[in-house]
């Protein structure tokens, strides 16, 4: 098990390196720089700016400097000041030693905020939306799937799978405007745009006001719009997995022992049929967190989505690079966690 995890971690590092190189190359291949304005800056100023951000160095050097800032932790005995140069995404102290780790650098478009600041303020919003959407997906998808699977080829089955097809056929850019119009404009039940949580966040990512109506009234529509597609995937998978499980020998054994149907389904079939569902949660959650970009644009939510799209048009290299890297890290970690849960849930799986 330990060896397996070590191998996976090494592999993850390799993957992230490749992702960073491709992104860096592609980003710099786009012509134009971050300081190209409609009214061109004087040459000396441009040269100074480029020198300040190391943009005059050869590409490989820029890449190495960037990766150094992101990956290598910095130690100091003094508490970091609030100066931009001292910023990092993670700042904490162990005894008297201060550790600064993952410095994603300055944002070229903003003088006063670093990329770390953007992540600290905007990522929690995307994360909250992603979690809410996953909850919506699970709350709708699992019951539908279980119902359809237990009552195969009945009206429940057709109803459940019909809902699932509706779910996958309505993308956020369709569901968004429809929901906004129905509940936000026509019925006026919910605010059509915006988000209920502002920085600073509880523990770095939870809304400070707590999970109150103030938070939910903004979150309901976007998370439903984003989560219905997921609920369809979960419903189909739960149904298929349950159908397969109920045909297993140990279920027949359980029945022949004379156990009640409730115990057979509840204790034996459901638990085992959830394994494939759990394995897909990682990729699904990762897809949801990147999928929040669309939802944020539709509902005017101040998450990472808007920053990423504008950073590309502004050639704000550190924001582009940081966002893609952070999401890639998220993706590979989610997949690793899922594989480990898999082994935990199914004792037949061993990693040797």
């Amino acid at each position, binding site marked *: 098990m330990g060896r397996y995890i070590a191998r996976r971690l090494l592999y993850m590092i390799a993957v992230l390196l490749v992702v960073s190189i491709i992104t860096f190359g592609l980003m710099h291949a786009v012509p134009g720089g971050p300081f190209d304005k409609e009214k061109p800056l004087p040459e000396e100023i441009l040269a100074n700016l480029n020198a300040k951000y190391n943009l005059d160095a050869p590409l490989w050097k820029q890449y190495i400097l960037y990766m150094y800032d992101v990956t290598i932790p910095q130690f100091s005995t003094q508490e970091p000041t609030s100066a931009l140069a001292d910023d990092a995404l993670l700042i904490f102290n162990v005894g008297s030693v201060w550790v600064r780790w993952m410095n994603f650098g300055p944002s070229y478009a903003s003088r006063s905020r670093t990329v770390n600041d953007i992540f600290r303020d905007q990522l929690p919003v995307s994360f909250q939306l992603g979690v809410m959407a996953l909850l919506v997906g699970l709350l709708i998808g699992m019951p539908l799937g279980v119902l359809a699977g237990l009552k195969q080829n009945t009206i429940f089955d057709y109803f459940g799978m019909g809902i699932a097809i509706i779910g996958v056929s309505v993308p956020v850019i369709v569901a968004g*405007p429809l929901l906004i*119009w129905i509940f936000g404009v026509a019925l006026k039940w919910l605010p059509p745009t915006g988000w209920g949580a502002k920085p600073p966040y509880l523990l770095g990512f939870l809304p400070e006001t707590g999970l109150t109506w103030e938070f939910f009234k903004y979150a309901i529509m976007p998370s439903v719009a984003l989560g219905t597609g997921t609920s369809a995937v979960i419903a189909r998978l739960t149904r298929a997995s349950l159908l397969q499980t109920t045909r297993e020998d140990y279920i027949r054994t359980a029945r022949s022992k004379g156990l009640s149907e409730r115990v057979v389904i509840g204790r034996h079939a459901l638990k085992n049929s959830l394994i494939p569902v759990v394995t897909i949660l990682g990729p699904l959650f990762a897809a949801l967190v990147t999928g929040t970009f669309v939802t944020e644009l539709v509902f005017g939510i101040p998450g990472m989505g808007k920053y*990423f799209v504008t950073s590309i048009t502004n050639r704000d290299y550190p924001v582009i690079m940081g966002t893609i890297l952070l999401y890639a890290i998220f993706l590979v970690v989610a997949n690793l966690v899922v594989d480990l849960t898999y082994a935990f849930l199914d004792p037949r799986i061993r990693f040797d």
Partner: protein
Amino acid sequence: MTVSDGQGELKFGAGGKPITAKGESLWADAMRRLLRNKAAVVGGSIVILLFLAAIFAPVVAIKSFEEQVLKDQNTVPEWIISVFPSIEPYARINNDYPFGADYVGRDLFSRIVYGARISLSVALIGPIISMIIGVIYGSISGFFGGRVDNVMMRIVDILYAFPSLLFIILLMAFFRSTLTVIEEGTFAWYMAELDEALGGMFFIFVGIGLTAWQTMARLTRGQVLSVREKEFIEAAHTIGASNIRIMFKHILPNIMGPLIVAETLAIPGYISTEAFLSFIGLGVNPPTPSWGTLISDGSGVIRTYPSQAIFPALALAITMFAFNFLGDGLRDALDPRLRGTQ
């Protein structure tokens, strides 16, 4: 779907079980099952209707999709007011436009009909590109196995770690800006010209192709691996058939079923990717109407003129429904044992 000839001897379904009882070909058999599935027939008919509407767009939509009649901006016909009573205080009535006119006075109905051309081209070309790349890649990987397979699949794994939506946004930004400043006569210049001629669709195809083939490659590899150990492949080897002949004549026809099903089920994803790209302004070039652009334009005025966003949104949803129903039906028809598993 075509019923191909010369495959009468084909006796194996996707899982290697004999399917044909009366010497009927696999495809004829699948077609019969498909036609019995009501949802799939409805979906298929909608798809055909959409294609007809897109091809004959100039006949279906008489008004121009780009002519701006400023005095008619944001006008709606009477029937829309009875459906959306909240418009009444703002709207000016003009029954010339079946779905109303947009914020610069263009006929919304024409724009939706012409918009179908974009979505359906993506539905047609997206699968072709990802099939070509994915099937070639996956079959090489699966057929040769061993070290080749290992390296090729690791590459696919790495590409999987890319947040694909972010990646496609970056790619589109790259295409849209780089290739406009290059000198005449180079390969990149011809690509940019082609894109210009297609109203910006070419790079959408490339972007979708580059991000969508990995799934196809994995699926193909898995299928090739399961088929290549079968006796009839061994038999082909013994009579001295070349690798290429075995690949195209014996393996590919046997794994086509699952590949077609996977691609049909992926089409709604391609359609929504294009719509999303156009929604954020990285898709087709204006004034080419795409449903994504229309929804984006309409969302801006959703408080006053909801119909401008809702009609294109419904068009997009109906199209995706139709392809999903058709894909589901195809899957059930080609391999009945898989019903409802994906």
